[in-house]
């Protein structure tokens, strides 16, 4: 029975995440436009863009290789795999035993590497410059990501156990964990605000890249939101009422997570400030020092 509930919860979680990802992106873009004094697009605009792109005729540079063919689908698959491992509204999902923090960090790094390689595949100037920028920024942000998730893993094993510790108040009272979550939030800000490297894509490849970006944004907000505000998540043995509360709280957490993202976009411009990555690394290193004391 427990296995059936875990599987049902996992499928429901994935369905919710996949449905919410474009809507969440739409909300963030609408709020950014509203705060920026521009015409506010519909929150369903990302859906419409993806549908429109799928119908278009794709072109590919002659210098592109198999990497350009595989990368868009691989990006989506990796982003969905990350999403499947990070809980949204309930604990004890079927894939919870695989949700090791270090594994999630490595998957998030892979999610970042694949588009960078694809951007370099055609050998165009803009793709190469974007890839170089992303790789240089990654030295700070991804190091902070690894350190922060390592420190958080000290409180338990899998992400579920960390969240249970958080629900018991352990995360908010330990300065090491607080610093680690702050580092993660800064990394999330840098990663989500950074523009997608999709200049070499068109039509359905571009649509897949957009889907991957939308899922990635939701994954980051899910991860940081659940760690920063670890309450309202249905326990593994919870019933339908707990699930309903969990879904409502999850929606609220996402709404709260959208606000700093919008602020970063409105006040920080189209590209993230380099300060974010450096600050994240500093927080991550200090959190490791405090966590290992």
């Amino acid at each position: 029975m427990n296995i059936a509930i875990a599987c049902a919860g996992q499928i429901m979680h994935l369905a919710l995440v996949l449905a919410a990802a474009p809507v969440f992106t739409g909300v963030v873009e609408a709020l950014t436009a509203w705060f920026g004094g521009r015409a506010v697009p519909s929150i369903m605009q990302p859906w419409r863009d993806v549908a429109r792109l799928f119908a278009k005729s794709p072109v590919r540079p002659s210098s592109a290789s198999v990497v350009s063919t595989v990368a868009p689908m691989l990006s989506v698959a990796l982003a969905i795999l990350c999403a499947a491992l990070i809980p949204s509204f309930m604990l004890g999902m079927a894939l919870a035993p695989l949700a090791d923090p270090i594994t999630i960090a490595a998957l998030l790094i892979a999610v970042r590497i694949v588009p960078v390689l694809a951007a370099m595949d055609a050998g165009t100037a803009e793709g190469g410059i974007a890839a170089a920028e992303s790789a240089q920024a990654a030295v700070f942000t991804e190091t902070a990501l690894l350190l922060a998730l390592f420190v958080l893993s000290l409180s338990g094993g899998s992400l579920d156990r960390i969240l249970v510790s958080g629900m018991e108040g352990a995360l908010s009272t330990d300065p090491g964990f607080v610093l680690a979550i702050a580092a993660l939030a800064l990394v999330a800000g840098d990663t989500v605000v950074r523009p997608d490297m999709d200049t070499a894509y068109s039509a359905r490849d571009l649509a897949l890249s957009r889907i991957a970006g939308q899922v990635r944004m939701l994954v980051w907000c899910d991860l940081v939101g659940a760690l920063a505000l670890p309450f309202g998540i249905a326990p593994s043995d919870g019933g339908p009422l707990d699930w309903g509360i969990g879904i409502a709280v999850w929606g609220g957490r996402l709404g709260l997570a959208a606000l700093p993202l919008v602020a970063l976009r409105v006040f920080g411009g189209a590209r993230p400030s380099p300060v974010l990555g450096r600050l994240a690394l500093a927080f991550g290193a200090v959190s490791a020092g405090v966590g290992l004391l």
Partner: protein
Amino acid sequence: MTDPILPLLLGIVVALTALGAASGFVARGFRPAIGLAGTALAGLGAMLSLLALAMRADPAGLSLPLGLPGMALRLALDPLAALFLTVAFLAGTARIAFAAETAAVEAGTLALRLAGAMLTILAADGTALTLGLALTVGAGNGARSLGIAGLGALACFAALSLVGVSFDAVRGEADRSWAFWILALAGPGALAFGAARPVFVYGLLRFALDLGGPSPPVWGAMALLAAGSAGAVFGGWRAATGAETDLCLEGLTDRQSGLAAIGVGLALLGKASDLPGLTTLAVVAALFAALGQGLGGALGQIVAGAVHTNAGSRRLTSLGGLIHSMPWVATALAAVLLAGTVLPLGAGFTTFWLLLRSLAAAPRGIWLAGVATALALSAVLSGVALIRLFGVAFLGRPRGPRAAGAMDISKAARPGPWVLTGAIVAMGLLPGPVLMLADAAIGQLAGLPMGDRAGWFDPLPTLPLLFVGAVIGGAVVWAVRRRGGPAHRVVPPWNEGFAPSPPWLPFGEPLTQSAGGFFPALVWTRPRWRIPRVAGLPMLLAAVAVLLAALAVTR
């Protein structure tokens, strides 16, 4: 049962040495025969070592009536030696077979180096160890800097102080920390300067964990952790900023050396703190780093040689687009990167995961934060190296005529790289069976084998993760195919509105592709001092002569 294997392995060492020495004198027409014979010998050695490893037999010893008066050469085959012999023979077989087909490197030189490595690994006393190290370092005419040659000589001289001392006698002593420090003093220096290679990592494991005694000093563990952290970061940095393919790949190998040293340091900390669980986990991490380094390093050298020979340059700024013309080499490079970086489901990730788990199990101390930061930073630098090496050299457009006309390796040269590629992929996907194979060696070093914990899904649930990933990936591909849509049209690369390159720049304007400035060195890099490339045999003879002279003086 290992008793008959040891003489056979010794025979292979002698035959490889003779083959390597003969290669300097025979006519060029005999070179393919030497390559073939070297491949056959190394392949036989790999099978024998694997047999010894799989049988988990008791250690066997052999005393040879050779050497200096009163100092017979002693050799031994124990689980640790069998594990490293398997890896070294596997890597050696692939490299010699590839060299025989492509002539990128002299097969005879490789045979000589392999023989030196074998002798070092089989050594059960200081004399055999010194001879093995001298053979390895002397035959290593691939050493490209004075630092590497000098540190190799330093290790030889460190081993020299053990001449005539049996390892069994060291094990029998109550206080044997002196034996640990002899190579531990040479090892960290070599690691920090990126000079270490699998044989030195083996020496570190043997001296620090097997011969170092049950209760090493804590400051020794801290020294190794500091040196390993520095080695891992410098190795990653070299890999991410190197101007040539072989330098980048060497940097990844050196990073693995640093990781192995961190693993050994944590294992020593576990022994010093009486935490057997930590010791076992850290030993497993160190062994994984060493195995990844052995296999990935050998494959990396094959890839670097193939690129240099077939694309005409080692410089990243002259390459580009090789994935179109050299798909087999590109696949081999992907395996190297899987072993040397932290991509999920790769052997490098397993090492990284095990090291972080060991760090979490270690007694708390703020200084461990430095180790954690170094581990994370080196992991990210290895990722940058992946992007830079693969992206600049293999993706994009060719940056010169030689790169545009590059040819893939021939069919006859492919088996070696493919065997190593398969081994690396298997290491990443099936860490459990690898641990089961290495369980006796783990027990020998840590005093506590993994036993039942080395199952199919331990220590990492890689296969379930692979299964879930494959299901999700399959669903994405199915959905995209089902959605269909028009087929791709192939068009010339667009330059964001800029005009196409003029006819006198057939490979495009060089500045429109990232290359040298992709991840520039942010610190001043010292000029590389190169030693002239000379034949291996004179170097070997010179090294042995120096060692014997030093021995005469000290005795």
